[in-house]
């Protein structure tokens, strides 16, 4: 079950929930908020989503991971609103019998998320001003 949350992503709980007796690998990816972008100092990041559509897209992505890779479970959590620097804004966990498919699935899910889920990221800059991060046009 995918999740959108305005609270800090519960890292320990997510990882613990990914452990399964039939799996020898849990691949975990955290995207964390970064203090620079294209030579500008970033002081704040904020995320916005078309929430019901984003949730359906994330759940579809979780199902697609299970269909495409030899893995047993996938869970995606994305944070919304202001996210302080160096905190996770997104988490993808994949549980699998073996590490290869777990790593591959985790990376694929993250790449897909960035281009298929209606979520937007805005940066505020140290020298003043703010801007939406250049993104990818959603394709039907």
């Amino acid at each position, binding site marked *: 079950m995918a999740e959108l949350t305005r609270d800090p992503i519960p890292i320990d709980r997510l990882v613990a929930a990914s452990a399964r007796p039939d799996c020898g690998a849990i691949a975990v990816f955290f995207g964390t908020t970064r203090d620079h972008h294209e030579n500008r100092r970033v002081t704040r990041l904020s995320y916005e989503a078309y929430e019901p559509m984003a949730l359906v897209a994330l759940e579809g992505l979780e199902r697609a991971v299970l269909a495409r890779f030899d893995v047993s479970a996938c869970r995606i959590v994305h944070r919304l609103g202001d996210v302080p620097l160096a905190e996770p804004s*997104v988490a993808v966990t994949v549980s699998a019998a073996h590490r290869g498919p777990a790593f591959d699935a985790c990376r694929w899910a993250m790449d897909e998320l960035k281009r298929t889920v209606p*979520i937007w990221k805005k940066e505020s800059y140290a020298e003043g001003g703010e801007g939406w991060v250049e993104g990818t046009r959603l394709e039907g």
Partner: protein
Amino acid sequence: MTITVLLFAQAREHAGRARLTLELPEGSRVADAIAVLERDHPALASLRPHLALAVDQRLVRADASLAHGAELALLPPVSGG
């Protein structure tokens, strides 16, 4: 007919609001709604080539038809993660 329009990210900022309702003639299509929005909020026009459009949370083309009560969303290029 009446439809709801949801605007996100740059579209929300260009229009100065996140949500509005439009009265449109029966038989209107998404492109007709966009034309009204661009007339009322000219700043939106510059975004038009970059926008994806969704009706009731499904991506559609500008020639898609609209029904009373539809929810049209203007979706700038996405940048999650």
